[in-house]
C-alpha cells in the first residue's frame, strides 16, 4: 500500500482528499463472477463536489459503498485496487512533521480497503459519512430521531459529550466507568440500576442533556424547524424531505472530511429536492467538506458538481470538469446520454435513444463495454480495452476512454 498513488495524477490542481485506483469489486453469482466495478480510478480534490453519474447497474453505488467497506463479502469480492484517503488526523509515524508515508503532508493516509473492521469503524460516520438514497429505509423505524442522531456522538464524540455536560474534569472512579458504559450503550442490569439513583443519576441527567444539546444543534444545522420537538418523533412521523434532512444531520454531525451522497434526492419531489440540494451545497461550502455525489440525473449533477466522472458497465468512460463534460462531451456514451434527455429542441418522437441494452457483466470479454451500442464502433473496439487518457495535452483533467481520441 504505497501512498505514491495519491499524487499519481499530475493533471489535478490542489490537494487530493481521496484517490481511487484500479478498484475492482466483483460479485459471485450462480452464472459466474459479475464484474460490477472493473478497474475504476478517480481522485477527489479537497473541498470539491465530485459527481459520479451513470445508469442503473453501472456500479456507482458499489463504488461508493467500497469507501465505507459496506460491501458484503461474500457474495462480494474485493478483487483489487485501493482507495487512499487522507483524513484530518495526524500521521502516526511522524506526528505531523511530514514523512514518506504521508507524502510530507503530516496527515494520515490510509487505504480504506485494507483497514480492519475496528479501524474502519473509527472512520465511518466520523471522517467519512454517507447519505443514503431512501431515507425511509435508511432510518431505523423503531428508534426516535434523537437516539439515531445521538449514536454518532456516542460512537465518536464521547469526550465532547462529557465536556458539554461539564463533568469531564470532575469524573472519577465508578462514576466515570458507569457514564462511559452509559454513553457507549453497554450498560447491563446492575449498571443501569446504579445509574437510576443518586449520585450517579445526577451525572447521568447532565450527560442526557448534553447529548440532547448536541443532537438538536446537529438538527438545527440542517434547517429543521423546531429541532427539540422533532427529536422525540419517529421516522414515520416525518415527511420525506424532513427524513432526508435528519440523514444529512446524522452524516455531518461529526464534520466529516468526505461526504458520500448516494442519490440523496431521488425519492423526493422537485421542490423538496431543490431545498435539499441547496442545503448540501451550503453545508459543503461552510464546512469545506469534500462530497462524492452519486446520481443518475445529469442535469442535477451539472448544477451541483465541480467535476464529473461518467460510469458505464463498471468502468469510467469519461471524466473532467462538469461544464466541459456537458458542453463538449467526447465519449459516444456521454454524448448519447445527454441527447437522450427530453428537451425543448427535440421534436416529439425524435429523441436520440441509445439503442440496445447494458451488456451482461458476468465474466465480460475484453474490449470496450460500450461497443455493442456504439454508432462509431471501430475494428479494435471489440478486441482491446481502451484506457482512460487525457483528450488533449492542454486540458489534462478531461479524460476519456475511447479509441476515437487516440
Amino acid at each position, binding site marked *: 500500500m504505497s501512498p505514491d498513488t495519491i499524487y499519481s495524477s499530475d493533471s489535478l490542481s490542489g490537494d487530493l482528499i481521496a484517490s481511487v485506483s484500479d478498484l475492482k469489486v466483483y460479485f459471485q453469482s450462480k452464472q459466474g463472477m459479475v464484474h460490477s466495478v472493473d478497474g475504476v480510478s478517480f481522485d477527489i480534490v479537497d473541498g470539491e463536489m465530485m459527481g459520479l453519474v451513470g*445508469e442503473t447497474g453501472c456500479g456507482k453505488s458499489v463504488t461508493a459503498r467500497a469507501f465505507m467497506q459496506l460491501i458484503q463479502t461474500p457474495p462480494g469480492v474485493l478483487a483489487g485496487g485501493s482507495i487512499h484517503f487522507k483524513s484530518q488526523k495526524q500521521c502516526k509515524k511522524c506526528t505531523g512533521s511530514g514523512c514518506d508515508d504521508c507524502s510530507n503532508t503530516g496527515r494520515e493516509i490510509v487505504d480504506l480497503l485494507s483497514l480492519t473492521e475496528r479501524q474502519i469503524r473509527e472512520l465511518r460516520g466520523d471522517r467519512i459519512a454517507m447519505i443514503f438514497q431512501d431515507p425511509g429505509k435508511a432510518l431505523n423505524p423503531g428508534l426516535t430521531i434523537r437516539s439515531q442522531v445521538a449514536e454518532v456522538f456516542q460512537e465518536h464524540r464521547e469526550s465532547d459529550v462529557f465536556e458539554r455536560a461539564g463533568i469531564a474534569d470532575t469524573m472519577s472512579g465508578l462514576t466515570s466507568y458507569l457514564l462511559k458504559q452509559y454513553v457507549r450503550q453497554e450498560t447491563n442490569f446492575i449498571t443501569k440500576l446504579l445509574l437510576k439513583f443518586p449520585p450517579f443519576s445526577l451525572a447521568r441527567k447532565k450527560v442526557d442533556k448534553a447529548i440532547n444539546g448536541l443532537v438538536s444543534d446537529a438538527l438545527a444545522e440542517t434547517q429543521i424547524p423546531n429541532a427539540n420537538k422533532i427529536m422525540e418523533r419517529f421516522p414515520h412521523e416525518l415527511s420525506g424531505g424532513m427524513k432526508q434532512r435528519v440523514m444529512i444531520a446524522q452524516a455531518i454531525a461529526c464534520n466529516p472530511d468526505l461526504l458520500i451522497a448516494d442519490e440523496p434526492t431521488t425519492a423526493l419531489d422537485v*421542490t423538496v429536492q431543490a431545498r435539499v440540494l441547496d442545503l448540501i451545497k451550503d453545508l459543503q461550502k461552510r464546512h469545506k467538506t469534500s462530497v462524492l455525489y452519486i446520481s443518475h440525473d445529469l442535469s442535477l449533477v451539472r448544477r451541483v458538481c465541480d467535476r464529473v466522472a461518467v460510469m458505464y458497465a463498471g468502468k469510467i468512460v469519461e471524466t473532467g470538469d462538469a461544464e466541459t463534460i456537458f458542453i463538449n462531451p467526447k465519449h459516444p456514451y456521454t454524448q448519447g446520454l445527454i441527447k437522450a434527455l427530453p428537451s425543448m429542441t427535440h421534436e416529439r418522437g425524435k429523441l436520440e435513444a441509445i439503442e440496445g441494452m447494458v451488456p451482461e457483466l458476468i465474466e465480460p470479454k475484453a474490449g470496450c463495454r460500450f461497443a455493442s451500442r456504439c454508432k462509431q464502433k471501430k475494428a479494435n473496439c471489440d478486441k482491446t480495452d481502451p484506457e482512460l487518457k487525457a483528450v488533449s495535452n492542454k486540458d489534462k483533467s478531461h479524460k476519456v476512454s475511447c479509441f476515437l481520441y487516440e
Partner: protein
Amino acid sequence: MSSADKTILSVKNVKKHFPIKEGVFQKVVGQVHAVDGVNFDIKEGETVGLVGESGCGKTTIGRCVAGLEALTEGNIYFDLPSDKIALLEDSEKQDDKKVSAEQIEEIGNSYDIGKIEGDLFNHYRRNCQMVFQDSFASLSPRQLVSDIVSRPLRVHNVCPENEVIPRTINLLEQVGLGAQHLYRFPHQFSGGQRQRISIARALALDPKLIVLDEPTSALDVSVQAQILNLLHDLQKKRGLAYLFITHNLSVIRHMADKIVVMYLGKVVEAGNTEDIFANPQHPYTKALLAASPDLQSEVTSGMAALDGAIPDPARPPQGCSFRTRCPVAQPECGWEVDDVVRRLEHKDSIFNFLKEVDQSDAFNAKFTFETEAAANQLMAAMKSDDIPDAMKKMVSKLNCDAEHVTVSFKPAKTVPLIACGNGSSARCVLVNK
C-alpha cells in the same frame, strides 16, 4: 388527425375522498380529499399531461379515469357525442331550463363510466387501458408473456383461439419485442422491456385512450428515450389519446399537447404546453419550473424552492390551497385559524401551555392557555414578522382576555379557475391583475 376535435373523455367536477378510519369499530373520523373537483377533457389523438408533486392526487385521477376507483362525486363521460356535450354544457348554466333532468340522467346512463353496464361498459373497458408505473408489480410473475399479452384478447373474445398467438406476436413486434420473447417470464426482462410488455398488453384491444401512470419514472434516461419514442410512434399510427401522468416536467414538456397542473387535489393551472412553459401564471407552476433542473438553463441561476410542506389533505386550507407556501400570498387568498398554528408552531414554547382550542369554524377560534403570559406571547407573535402582512390584513378580530385569545378572520371563498387567454386557466387571485 382529422377527428382531433372529438372529445373522447370528459372529467366533470370529479371528487374522490378516502375515509380515515379509527378505533376498534373502524369509525370514520375524517376524509382525505385526494381529488377535490377536477375538470378536464381529452380529445382524440391528443396527449394530456398531468403534473404535480407526490400526494397531489394525480395517480388517483388516473385510477378514476381507468375505472379502478368509484368516484365520491362528479362524473367521467367516455366517448360522448358532441351534441350531448352541448346539452351538458347547457345544463351547467343554472338559468337555462331547456335541459330536463331526465335528459341528463339518460346521458349518464349511457356514457358515465360509473353508471354504464353490460355492452356499454365492455365498450369502455376495451377502449380505455392503463400502463402502470411499476412494471415489477403490474405483471404477474407467474404468467408467461404470451399469457399476459393475450389475456385481454381472450377476455373480450375478439378473435378465434387459433388467431390469438399470431396477434400476440404482432403486438410484441409493435413494441419492439418479438416471437422469441413469448414464452418467458417477466423477471427475465429488463425494466425497459417489461414496460414494453405492459404497453403491448394495453394495446391488445386497440383502445382509444391509454392512461400512462409514470411510465418512465423507474427507467434510465437512455431507455426512457426509447419508450417515449415508442409511445409517440404508436400514437401517430393508431390515433391514440394519452393521459400522461408524471412528475417529470421535461418529459411532459416533450410529450404533452395540454398540461394540467395539480396541487392538493385541485387543478391549479391548465392550458397548452407551450403557453404554460413560456408564461406560467400560477405561483406554484412557476416554483415547479424553477425547481426542476434542465440541461438548457443557466447553471448560475439558483433553484428557487418552496418553503414548508404540503398541507394535510384531510384538512385542506380554505380559499387558495397554495397560500400556505406561496411567496406572493395576498390578503384575499383566504386566511384561516389553521394558518396561525402553521406559522407559529415552529416557534418554541408558544403552544406549549395551550389548554384547549374552541374552533367554531375555519375562520374563528378561541385559544385557552394555562397562563396569562403564554396568551400574551401569542398576541405578541401575531403582531410580529412571523405573520405575513397579507394575513394580518385579514384578521377581523384579535383580542386577549386573561388567558383566552380570540382570533377571527374575514371569511373567504374558494378561488375559482380563472381563464387567462389562449384557452389556459389558473387558480390564483393574481391572474389578470
